[in-house]
């Protein structure tokens, strides 16, 4: 017997990590310089969450996947061009800032409202997926707050594996301190899972999936509700600055790992 899941994936978007990021002071607090010019990607944790969701839905017929995302509409559209060929999902978007200079609680509130507004969502079948460190500058707070706001007490963070039993129970493998895993079991949905990297590779681009998704993606983008996560926030930034970096690139082929490790230790000690 299979289970029917209603999986909502919270997908935060971030500037492509290879871009030059520079904080500047904007009218409403800190912003990223040229943020609207930088190409955006689904943040890596959220990406894994989406692929795991699609895989779970494929194994459990009757399941559905929604991708809920908060970000500037134009950037969300661009990200959709990159991921909508990968797995089937329905998009729900909130048009607001994804600069990273937002308060975790404000973001969680917007996501909770967006999820509450999904037509046909059955909370008894609900799994809320997301990246465990997403949308909070690595503090890992958004998914927990979102769970609380939705009234879901079964929460797991740093998840790498989810196994669904025939009886609807869930077995979850979470990362804990010291490189170890904790395996938990719970009776079933609803639950919140903040994913780490999972176990699945990025799926290949499938044009048929793209065609099918895009029919719903464009209307969803057009209907995106504005979400203000900056103004009215209680969060204030005293200062923001780029971490100092020094680049000394050498390209060496076939270097033994022992030599690499030795060099790194020497550099750290210097």
């Amino acid at each position: 017997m299979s289970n029917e899941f209603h999986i909502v994936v919270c997908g935060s978007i971030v500037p492509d990590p290879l871009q030059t990021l520079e904080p500047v002071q904007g009218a409403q607090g800190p912003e990223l310089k040229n943020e609207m010019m930088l190409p955006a990607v689904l943040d890596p944790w959220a990406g894994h969450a989406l692929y795991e969701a699609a895989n779970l839905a494929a194994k459990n017929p009757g399941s559905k996947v929604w991708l809920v995302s908060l970000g500037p509409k134009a950037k969300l559209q661009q990200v959709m061009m990159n991921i909508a060929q990968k797995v089937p999902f329905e998009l729900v978007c909130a048009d607001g800032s994804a600069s990273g200079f937002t308060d975790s609680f404000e973001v969680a509130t917007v996501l909770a409202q967006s999820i509450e507004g999904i037509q046909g969502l059955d909370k008894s079948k609900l799994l809320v997926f997301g990246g465990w460190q997403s949308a909070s500058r690595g503090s890992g707070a958004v998914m927990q707050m979102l769970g609380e706001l939705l009234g879901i007490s079964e929460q797991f963070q740093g998840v790498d594996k989810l196994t669904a039993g025939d009886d609807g129970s869930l077995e979850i493998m979470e990362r804990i301190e010291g490189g170890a895993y904790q395996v938990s079991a719970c009776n079933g949905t609803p639950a919140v899972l903040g994913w780490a990297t999972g176990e699945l590779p990025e799926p290949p681009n499938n044009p048929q999936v793209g065609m099918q998704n895009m029919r719903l993606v464009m209307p969803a983008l057009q209907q995106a509700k504005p979400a203000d996560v900056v103004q009215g926030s209680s969060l204030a930034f005293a200062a923001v600055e780029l971490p100092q970096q020094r680049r000394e690139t050498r390209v060496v082929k076939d270097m033994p790992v022992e030599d690499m490790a030795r060099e790194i230790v020497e550099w750290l000690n210097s």
Partner: protein
Amino acid sequence: MSDTVQRQEMEADIVCVGFGPATGGFLTTLGRALVNEDGTPLAESKVMPGMPPQVICYERADDIGFGVSGVVTKGRSIKESFPDLDLSQIPMAHEVTEERVAYLLDPIGASRRSAPVKVADAGLKFVARDHAVELPWIPEFLQKHGGMVLSMGQFNQWVGSQVMGSGLAQIWPGTPVAEPLLNGRAVKGVRLVDQGVDKQGNPDAGYMPGMDVKAALTVVGDGPVGSVGQYLDRELGLPEGKHQREWAVGMKMVVQLPEGCELKPGTVLHTLGYPEPEIFGFMYVYPDMSASLGIFVPSWFDNPVRTAYRYMQHWMMHPYLWKHLEGGTLRSWGAKSLQESGLQGEPFLAGDGFARIGEGSGSTNVLTGSGVDEAWATGVQLAEAVIELMRERRPYTRENLESAYVQRRRESWVGEEAEQAAKARDGFTLGFIPGMLGMALSGLTRGTINMPGRSRKPWERIPRIEEYFKGVVTEQELIQLRKECQAKGASLHDALMDRAGWPEVPLDGKLLVSHQDALLMGGKVVANPGYADHVTFADSYACSVCTEQVCSEICSGQAISVNPEGGAPLFDREKCVHCGACLWNCSKPHPEDDENTNVQFAAGSGGLHSAEN
């Protein structure tokens, strides 16, 4: 090609290959017409009855914003498409405010200048400032007054978001197309590249054979080195008397100009004469005190150890430019090939089920040094033709496309100016001075009088290193240098440029950085796994006995390197920026087609991740 693999199929009405300015023009124009004012579709989709025609565009790069060009353009066609164009809405765009063309003298003494050039230099030295002489007057055919400077990456993003926003066309980046689906001389759609394969293309984990996307019309806009365009040229041949032998590689940077730099947004500088007479340079200043700048290394630069990167650094350090650049910071970097044969390299523009637009269709104007606007115009013209055929319910046959599209193109300013420019560069096949004279003659007489030239295949042009560096390095020394460089897996150009008197580049870690740093800082990404190598050597024996290995010298990303163990060069997909320069920088003919070289360049995944290019 026999193909026994079971492939999935999908159907669309129109499939486009490559998202650049040409496809941008095509989709912008078509998208506006697909739905009538009363909400009814212009024509019914053949594959989804009741819906408007289904239009899909596949782009190789990971994003449609990863163009690699700063451009200056008159923008005639772009402005026609956007009559209310507000350049402030496009990041890094600005109207042209000032234009200068400067002839650069050689302040170092390492440049290889012919006797007539040396004589000219001696005369100009007395009027030069910062070792440069600005032309007192820019010929009309070169002027870009009233035009705009753009970042192709930002422009593509802007256009693409509007096209996608209309909901009438889908654009899918990160999806390389392997080849067209040919049936005789008719095109039935395209085949996407296989995913989940090893470097040689053999099935591996997660194997997913490239899907066949069938369409009544395939729009080929995949640029100068696109796989579909190349495939069609190979299979259909070029029209009688046509050849694609003139190329250039453009390498550029986006630089944050230093505090206090006096250059104003919209300034356009073009240079010639240095670091070598054959190398032209450009610099376009954007609104946020950044600039796009770089050089073009042409196929008629008969140096077997061509390198764009180090030449670009010497060019930047020329006093005429360095006074503006010193203290600046590298923001982005990239390279691309330019198809410079123009009309002489024009392929079959249309056939049953396909049409070609943009640079790969020979639209670049080599006399005016303009390509983006022409590419956009050809896309618009094809869209107008398609709208006409849709409205009249006529199929996309060769005859229909020739009368609706090709004729439109011929009768437009693009066609007229292409005719005038057809022989403008012929003189360069004989050298720099005949080339400049030829440009002037063709330009001033609107193509009536042209300097004759002698076109040669790219591989035929490349002399032996021993010949080119005669008097600089003895054969004995060259043997030793080859041995030393090969042991390090290094190409020869640094060693030989050092010997020719080029000074060491004083790396500052900000603007003057190592080639690999430029790759990293310019936004080079790790290539996606599961794709086959897209650069291959047709005859590896020819490579193993090749003493030039020009491919490794020119390679923009140092992705092609000398094999320390001898034999064919090594290719590292992780470093490739997909400029395609290897395709025409090879001194050996292709074993089956001597119009081409021994290097094969197909559609690959990955490249650069920089939207600022």
